């Protein structure tokens, strides 16, 4: 299904991240927050996969666990290196960390919080190269200039500090920093959520250009479905730490199979006064990942819930080619997609 995009670059299997809940003076573990609960997906080279879901669904933690910025509890991540080797990373075996980190980089949401205000733009962008002792002196300076030009900033400004730049320009600096190591996978964690709409379009266009020119693979984490539809080849919807549906973008938007996906789609206000948002909004609130409901986690809010949903957890299964969902009634439900 992903053959036209190239080989599998990243293979995530049964990834789990549990955070312990402690109580009492001995900090005894009394339970776990299952932030990421047994999720699996593949990412082909040159592809953009979006992880969408409400706050607290574990999408950011997934990205960070792949980078090993948080330690996963279980599961394995396999990454294909340029020379064809498959590097494995599991909670027990982290010996490939250094090599993997050069291939994966991350872009953050808040362009104000993610740049050190006491470092110049040059130092910020050059830092990854210095840490890995890949370049120095003249060579390093040339590399930084090249990166800044690539993201649409004038290299003359590289001795300035981040405060001299606008939100959109700062996000460009963040992109330059992420790309300076020549990574093949970029985890973009809500890269445009903090930006104004007109600037958001500039950054999204830049990300698409860079993907084409450099052959990048993106794991795009976002809650904004209209942005997701624009940027991604495939989408994975998360709910309380689990993936509930994955499909090629068009499919997911026009023929959602999981009621949660459909609820998310219909909740987006359409910027056209002639098309009214159709369905009634989803009732209730996101389940507590420390104390999730029985069966299907979505059943207390699901308008189609039946007895089986309360008792049995649905497993991910393929409905049509490339379109998988975790819902007992995926075949029976006729869910509307977005209009037009």
């Amino acid at each position, binding site marked *: 299904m992903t053959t036209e995009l190239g080989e599998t670059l990243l293979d995530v299997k049964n990834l789990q991240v549990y955070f312990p809940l402690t109580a009492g003076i001995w900090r005894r573990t009394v339970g776990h927050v299952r932030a990421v609960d047994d999720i699996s997906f593949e990412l082909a080279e040159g592809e953009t996969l979006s992880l969408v879901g*409400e*706050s607290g669904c574990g999408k950011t933690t997934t990205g960070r666990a792949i980078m090993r910025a948080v330690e996963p509890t279980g599961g394995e991540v396999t990454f294909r290196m340029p020379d064809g080797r498959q590097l494995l990373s599991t909670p027990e075996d982290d010996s490939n960390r250094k090599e993997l980190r050069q291939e994966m980089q991350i872009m953050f949401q808040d362009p104000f919080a993610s740049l050190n205000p006491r470092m110049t733009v040059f130092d910020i962008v050059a830092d990854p190269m210095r840490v890995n002792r890949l370049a120095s002196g003249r060579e390093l300076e040339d590399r930084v200039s090249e990166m800044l030009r690539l993201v649409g900033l004038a290299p003359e400004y590289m001795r300035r500090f981040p405060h001299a730049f*606008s939100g*959109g*320009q700062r996000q460009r600096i963040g992109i330059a920093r992420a790309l300076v190591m020549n990574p093949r996978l970029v985890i973009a964690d809500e890269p445009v959520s903090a930006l*104004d*709409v*007109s*600037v*958001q*379009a*500039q950054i*999204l*266009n830049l990300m*698409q250009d860079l993907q084409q020119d450099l052959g990048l693979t993106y794991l795009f984490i976002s*809650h904004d*479905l*209209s*942005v997701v*539809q*624009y*940027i*991604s*080849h495939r989408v994975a919807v998360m709910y309380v730490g689990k993936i509930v549906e994955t499909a090629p*973008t*068009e499919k997911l*938007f026009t023929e959602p199979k999981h009621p949660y996906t459909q*609820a*998310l*789609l*219909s*909740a*987006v*206000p*359409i*910027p*056209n*006064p*002639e098309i*009214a*948002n159709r369905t*009634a*909004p*989803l*009732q209730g*609130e*996101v389940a507590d990942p420390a104390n999730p409901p029985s069966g299907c986690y979505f059943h207390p809010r699901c308008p189609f819930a039946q007895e089986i949903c309360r008792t049995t957890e649905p497993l991910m299964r393929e409905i049509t080619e490339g379109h998988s969902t975790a819902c007992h009634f995926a075949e029976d439900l006729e869910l509307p*997609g*977005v*209009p*037009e």
Partner: protein
Amino acid sequence: MQETDTLLEVNNLKTYFFLDEGVVRAVDGVTFDLNQKKVVGVVGESGCGKSVLARSIMRIVRPPGRSVEGEILYYRPGQNGTSEETPQNIDLNDLPIDGSEMRNIRGSEITMVFQEPMVSFSPVHTVGSQITEGILLHQNVDKKEARGIAIDMLRRVGIPNPETRIDEYPFNLSGGMRQRAMIAMALSCNPQLLIADEPTTALDVTTQAQILELMRELQAEFGMAMMLITHNLGVVAQMADEVIVMYLGKIVEHTDVATLFRDPKHPYTEELLKSIPQIGRTRQTDRLTAITGTVPPPFARPAGCPFHPRCPKFMPGRCDVIEPQLDNVSEDGSRHLVSCLLYSDATAEVQTDA
């Protein structure tokens, strides 16, 4: 009926911030009116002055900011819907900020819902005490009755078990519930005008949909006018009757919502609408039309039309010289105000100026 009656008329309002670096003209000569029971959406990018406009109407702009010029005429309808009396009009901009008259209006006749429900509630008082405080101040009731009204309001905004929830602290409530409580507080005195400043920006999409639905229902039920400030064009399209588009402290376009989305006239509005990915329409193979450049810093406001450095239809020698005025460009007599030289026959002015 008085459906078309004017509730608020803002004339040439200017709110400036006097900083050491210079004067920031956050709201710079804004004129519009708002009818009773209507929802007007105010859109624009950050820094365009939409929040300061709201705060100016509420008269809660803090120094070094000050409304230096202009009128905010508030046509007060008769008390409690007995609209027999002639409306009494008051210039809010003329009242002392701390005077009793302004304090009587603020929080009772004109109320506001803020963006961050966590920051806008006091964390050390219960939700109930914060809601009843406003009721006790503005209505002639005793504590017990006020509590009853507060419980009733919490129920109407869809908070389950309001009798127990009323004694909880803001941190006990989720983001969506907190915003519901905020709305309950704003509506507890039956306002004529509710100003909602980015009421759903901090919320998830599904919660946003719930809150918007609730606001739509309550607006119809209470019959108040609403000023909805947002940067989300989807929210405006779904909620508003009229839309005001602001750029750098000025209104650039003001018309009804259908016209704005179907036939935008100002280049800024056009570009803004083109730059948003539209769910259901934008495809992965498409390309967004980004507006070139960024909003200029507040001290370096361009001469002439403030949008001219980013405008694709920039006319050298005119746009950077003449400051456009809001003119009605509608051909059928409805309201479609645009502030752009493309639509004004100002050629004559250029010659006389030169």
